[in-house]
């Protein structure tokens, strides 16, 4: 047993963290979240590719680094800490989907392009806003796709979309060119996790990957684990911000952190973050090394984090007092992320019930 990161993983974390500090300060995050500065966004994406983050879980024979989700965990955690709006998680999900469900030609066609940052994927699995189930996949599959996919994650901007479709009981993933789809940006609470509505009118998929229910579950679990890993970084960042503020903000002649109403709440936040962090690391390890355990592990992590981070987001703002409510101050950005995290790839009710159903 060794439940700790390796030297290489720690170096990777350092690298990502430095990159985020240098290249993605909150002013840049905000601009990108507003959809501004496409040129800078493109350049950052290229840098992320050159640093190898997009190639991390792509097998070496397809131009990747050939590492695992537990390595990716380090990158996602740091992305979350900075609220990085680049679709690193969607890229990983697309890579995982094609590596697992594609045939050799499809892998050769797409994995290298994902690793190099050349193909930028948006992901649309379920058609209902809150139904994580094969039945929640509605878009009709076939040679030509016509219909809508209402909540495509990171659809704008992207070059390709990975969309789940159904034909009778058969499920598939269709890869379509974004340019052939009519995409409308949805005004989401958290601009760093944008969704878009896709309308397809006789669009011919560039590739179609038949998938099983287990494949769909696996991709959903990858999403749930990824979201939770990002939530660790985000929650730690808002806890740090709030703790620092509590040390310096004076009311009634003392730093507010002296009062137990503040101090104990911050300690409870720490307890929760430590706990969903451990659950998430285990789940990230299970993706590659104990896939039978993945459903339970992913659900426990995502369920715990969904509720805990929601509370942390709210109290991160509340414990600052009025200044936390201002647009200028960063605490609110984490609150907004926590709203999205709560439902993305299944809310706490869904995941706790799934754990119960697993027995």
């Amino acid at each position, binding site marked *: 047993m060794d439940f700790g990161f390796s030297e290489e993983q720690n170096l990777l974390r350092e690298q990502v963290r430095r990159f985020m500090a240098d290249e993605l300060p909150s002013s840049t995050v905000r601009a990108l979240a507003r959809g501004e500065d496409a040129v800078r966004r493109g350049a950052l994406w290229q840098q992320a590719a050159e640093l190898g983050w997009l190639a991390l879980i792509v097998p070496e024979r397809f131009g990747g680094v050939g590492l695992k989700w537990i390595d990716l965990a380090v990158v996602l955690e740091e992305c979350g800490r900075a609220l990085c709006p680049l679709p690193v998680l969607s890229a990983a999900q697309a890579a995982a989907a094609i590596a697992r469900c594609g045939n050799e030609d499809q892998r050769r066609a797409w994995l290298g392009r994902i690793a190099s940052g050349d193909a930028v994927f948006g992901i649309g699995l379920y058609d209902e*806003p809150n*139904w994580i189930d094969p039945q929640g996949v509605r878009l009709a599959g076939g040679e030509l796709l016509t219909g809508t996919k209402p909540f495509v994650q990171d659809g704008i901007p992207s070059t390709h979309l990975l969309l789940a479709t159904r034909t009778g009981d058969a499920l598939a993933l269709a890869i379509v060119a974004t340019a052939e789809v009519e995409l409308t940006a949805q*005004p989401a609470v*958290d601009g760093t996790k944008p969704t878009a509505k896709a309308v397809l009118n006789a669009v011919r998929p560039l590739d179609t990957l038949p998938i099983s229910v287990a494949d769909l579950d696996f991709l959903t679990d990858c999403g749930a684990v990824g979201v939770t890993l990002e939530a660790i970084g985000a929650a730690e960042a808002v806890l740090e911000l709030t703790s620092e503020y509590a040390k310096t903000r004076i009311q009634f002649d003392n730093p507010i952190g002296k*009062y137990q109403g503040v101090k104990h709440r911050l300690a409870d936040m720490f307890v929760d973050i430590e706990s969903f962090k451990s659950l998430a690391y285990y789940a990230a390890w299970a993706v590659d090394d104990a896939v039978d355990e993945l459903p339970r592990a992913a659900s426990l992590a995502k369920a715990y984090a969904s509720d805990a981070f929601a509370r942390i987001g709210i109290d991160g703002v509340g414990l600052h*007092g*009025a200044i936390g409510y201002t647009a200028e101050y960063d605490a*609110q950005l984490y609150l907004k992320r926590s709203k999205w995290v709560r439902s993305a790839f299944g809310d*706490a009710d869904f995941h706790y019930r799934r754990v119960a159903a697993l027995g």
Partner: protein
Amino acid sequence: MDFDYTPSEQAFRNEVREFLAENLPPPKERGRGFLAGWLSKVRAKGWVGFSWPKEYGGGEGSLTEQAILKEEMALHRAPPLGTSFMGLAWVGPGIMQYGTDEQKQRFIPDILDSKVNWCTGYSEPNHGSDLAAIETKAERIGDHYVVNGQKIWTTGAPWADWIILLTRTQFDVERKHDGITCLLVPMDAPGVEVRPIENMAGERNFAEVFFTDVQVPVENRLGEEGKGWQVTISALANERSSIGEVTQMFARLDSLKALVKATRRQGRPAADDPAVQRRIGEFEAKIAAMKYNGLRYLTKQLRGEPLSSETSVNKLHRASLEIEMADFAVELTGMAGVQLGGDDAADGGSWARSSLGWPGVVIGGGTPNIQRNIIAERILGLPKD
């Protein structure tokens, strides 16, 4: 104990209902010009400043009838009775209690007629929860005070005509609550500068307000010099009871129940889900408790007993409901819940927007921790920390 209303109170409720049936179209049919007509009609009824003396244009109604009026108004989703929320909620009552005759004549009619908007200048950059430590300076020079300092989070300052301003006239005091003086200041006085602040929902309702050598005539002082804290305390008590309005909460609960009925989650009707039923039940219990708490406190007031810190109970319920109801709706509706607008947003994005709006209620009138301190220290007699 008797929860029934007297025949005359019941008659009054009927009168309000008839008035609303005649004069209040459904929200969608309230066109331009509706508000002005509405304001003059409720004014003519004597319902604005319902319990204030007739002498100053009030209605001189009873507290019970006032509660009935507010309940019916909220039930029917009526617009406010005047445009100056703060003027009606605490500036007016404060002037009524502490003002000179001249001040009552001068300020009250304009509040009742919605001619002026008031804002509240209490909080400062360094003093929020610890309000009594404020340091905006007012120096008496002849028949004027000269004000220097800064306020912050002043809601409505960008469009207010007047500000009720808490200043310090004496710095070398033993108790910080002494030496505070309350002034009524026109926002267009030379030396007043307003800089709006954007909140996390993108609105610019509150502001920083700077005072540089602002001259305020002595006749604009509310209450005695150095006794401004008492004025504030009574105003804050009014704020707590006015923000604690439960009827609006019942209306929100109705909207939430409607959302639940209209929502399917995991492919099944959300209304059949025991987890959902339990949450809705908890919300309803808290709101109903707020209602009956409020009636018990009203009874105390009617019996002439002083109302002290019990209102913090409802304030705490209101704060948690404000956060949790919106958050629950957002969670329930999944990806549609986190959309702020557009075709794919649940209820047009209204819950998502209110999930970003709670600090006005939760932080604005004193934070939950401060309410807990009030209960622990003033009611339970626990030592201060």
